[in-house]
């Protein structure tokens, strides 16, 4: 009976969390839409350029529905999005989804690779430096991670380019990929951006793993575990890590979100054909539907990952999992 109640309250908690996530997304969509509409410059003028006669401007505004009130356009756009229709790119006239999807795929490949490498590396290094607190290894990782946190990502990118592309000549400095390239060529092309991203997100996760573990390591139940005669790695992995997991998971989610969203700068540095670069280009062209779609996809990734992290944190917390 208690267990049934638990299932009930548990799923209610999870549904609540998911609902909150959706609500956040709707709010973001409104912000995005009205925010981009406030951007200086006019799409019609930008499209027509030199040939902008008042009449032509009027016609093109009419054709694009720009004369209708903003809230009406927002609702139409939102209902379109909910049906999977992101509208038509103003610049190219192609569907937004068609322009975005391949680029998003590229971005996700980059983010996925960086995530797969950085998360286990960060947690592993964090655990290792917590286990040797105050030792040389701990101090070294501490200094290096502080350095990589305090340096902007484009700088890390350029440093890597200078070292590996310009000086050593091992890797290409640009990450342009095209359909004709083999898998090996593609991997070589994106190695530097992936390395940059790994370095950027590694430090946060590493430091959180370390500090969260260390704060658990000073609790009485860890002392008790030592007094039971358990060795250090058993104490850390079996007793400390599960209790330190919640904040680590939260930071991992935050950083995975960053990998997708914050990739913009890195894509620009390496001229990588991802969604971030697409967004930057679209802003320059005043291609609002494309900007909005990119923004929404990024926001959804971010909110989604954080919501999942919240849910996982609830699921791993034994107090919530198994009530009295």
């Amino acid at each position, binding site marked *: 009976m208690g267990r049934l109640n638990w299932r009930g309250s548990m799923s209610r908690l999870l549904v609540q969390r998911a609902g909150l996530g959706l609500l956040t997304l709707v709010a973001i969509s409104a912000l995005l839409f009205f925010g981009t509409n406030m951007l200086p410059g006019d799409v019609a003028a930008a499209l027509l350029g030199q040939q902008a006669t008042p009449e032509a401007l009027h016609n093109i505004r009419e054709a694009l529905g720009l004369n209708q009130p903003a809230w009406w356009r927002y609702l139409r756009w939102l209902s379109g999005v909910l049906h999977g229709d992101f509208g038509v790119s103003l610049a190219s006239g192609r569907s937004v989804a068609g322009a975005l999807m391949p680029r998003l795929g590229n971005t996700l490949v980059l983010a996925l690779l960086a995530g797969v490498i950085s998360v286990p590396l960060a947690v592993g290094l964090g655990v290792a430096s917590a286990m040797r607190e105050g030792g040389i290894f701990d101090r070294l990782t501490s200094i290096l991670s502080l350095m990589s946190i305090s340096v902007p990502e484009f700088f890390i990118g350029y440093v890597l380019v200078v070292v590996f592309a310009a000086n050593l000549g091992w890797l290409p400095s640009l990450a342009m990929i095209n359909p004709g390239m083999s898998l090996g060529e593609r991997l070589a092309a994106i190695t530097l951006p992936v390395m940059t991203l790994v370095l950027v997100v590694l430090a946060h996760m590493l430091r959180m793993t370390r500090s969260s573990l260390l704060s658990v390591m000073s609790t009485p*139940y860890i002392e008790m*575990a030592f007094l*039971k005669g358990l060795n250090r790695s058993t104490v850390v992995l079996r007793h400390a890590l599960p*209790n330190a997991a919640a904040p680590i998971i939260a930071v991992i989610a935050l950083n995975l979100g960053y990998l997708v969203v914050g990739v913009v700068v890195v894509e620009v540095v390496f001229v990588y054909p991802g969604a971030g670069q697409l967004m930057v280009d679209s802003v320059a062209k005043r291609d609002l539907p494309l900007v909005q779609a990119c923004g929404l996809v990024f926001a959804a990734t971010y909110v989604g990952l954080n919501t999942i992290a919240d849910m996982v944190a609830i699921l791993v917390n034994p107090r919530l999992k198994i009530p*009295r």
Partner: protein
Amino acid sequence: MTQVLRIEGLRVQSASGDVLVHDVDLELARGEVLGLIGESGAGKSTIGLAALTYARPGCRIVGGRVLLGGTDLRGLDAAGRRGVRGARVAYVAQSAAAAFNPAMSLLNQVCEGPVRHGLMSRAQARERAVEAFRALDLPDPHRFGERYPHQVSGGQLQRAMAAMAISCQPDVLVLDEPTTALDVTTQIEVLAHLKKLIALYGTAALYISHDLAVVAQIADRIIVLRHGKIVETGPTQAILTSPKTEYARALVAERKAAELGVKTRERDRADTVLTVEDVTVSYGRRDVVRSAQFTIARGEIVAVVGESGSGKTTLAYAICGLVAARAGCISFEGAPLAPHYTRRTREELRRIQLVFQLPDVALNPRHSVGLIVGRPAAFYFGMKGPDLKVRVAELLVSVGLDPSIANRYPGQLSGGQKQRVCIARALAAKPDLIVCDEVTSALDPLVGEEILKLLRRLQEDLAVAYLFITHDLGTVRRVAHRVVVMLDGSIVAQGAVADIFDRPGHPYFARLMASAPQMRPGWLEEVLKGRAGSQGDTSIARSGTGSHLLE
């Protein structure tokens, strides 16, 4: 008797070089229980942990030998010491709630030791754990271990930790204040079970406590410690009846005073200061205090007693307006007070002052004592400059502190001095009622006794009334005129102290009285025998845990 553990010339230092334990020697025979007693900072736990060759972070064992069955544990390498910990010398911590991993089931934690030490298979360890659960009267021993620490009561958890400690059948148990965090009625059960367990497995034990009465029930011999040195050592009976050193005599006398109390007459109660009528306080949908009703007369000391969770502190907070009562009326000298302090006048606030349980937390570490004590005088009476200085000095003297302390900061004071500062701060407002929330429970017994004496003296000098929140009947006996007994948020009995201790009107109070440990060895057995005879009595305990102790 064969000797199991022998500690010779043990010396422990902190990182800053302070000596925490000075050349302590002790020995322990098989099946013997040795009590280590002393105030906080006496080095009791440090010695207990040293028996496992373990020193807390920041401490170091710098000298001496720890001989277990003839081998010096300090001579072993790290792996050798690990092999001893838990397997041959096991530790029981003060707070089971903190010492159990919240993310692991109890059974996993109990079985972990024997399995990891390679002493038993998982199935064997499980079998033994169930056996221990049964010996400790834990409910449903076969399935008890499936639960997580937060799912069982404090008393059950403490017993589960005892089961964890004996899981490897160690030669020596180190019991570090194993009942201190428990309510008196629970303490008695856990104590009885520990005693049973020690007898059952023939284990030797170091029993660490600050409470002489508790140690008297279980220890064969007692070592009295102070400032990391042995003050006196001897058989339990000898220490209790004829302590040789002055310090041991003071400890015994303090305990006796708690048992005997001070004779108080019922005072003239005509002039009522505080009236609590039908007060109910709720947190969310749960009533924490239900229809409380009592009065406090001018210059009277009223004690509210009850176990943790009985609502006594909430009641005190409602009187001070820190939590708003949901229903009922609190009036001061006949005038009703607003439920929440933000709606009370400055004068109303001035007349009721609060002294908290933990002086460490109640004093701003960045304010000097002079600022802390002077603040109410400035706030309520507009004092400043030299007047204020004089007043602060006067207040500090009245609580038995040197006026020069005004320039110091809380971090530089001892626990007892800090509590005196808190009392001086309350007095600065010239209140008519001081609410004291467990003001001595965080202090060592002798220091606490001094604080109680101070409070009584102030009450006689200033005719201020006290509402004394406490769980300790010894405190009630020593200071209070009247007592209000709370159980699960309701007041179940009240009356003059002399009357209620002679004729406890409610069975719960009788049970509380019976549970407060007395120094007489053999007292525990008497109480348990008495309890087994009247089973009806035990049904009053909420949890009903351990109601069939010695079957």
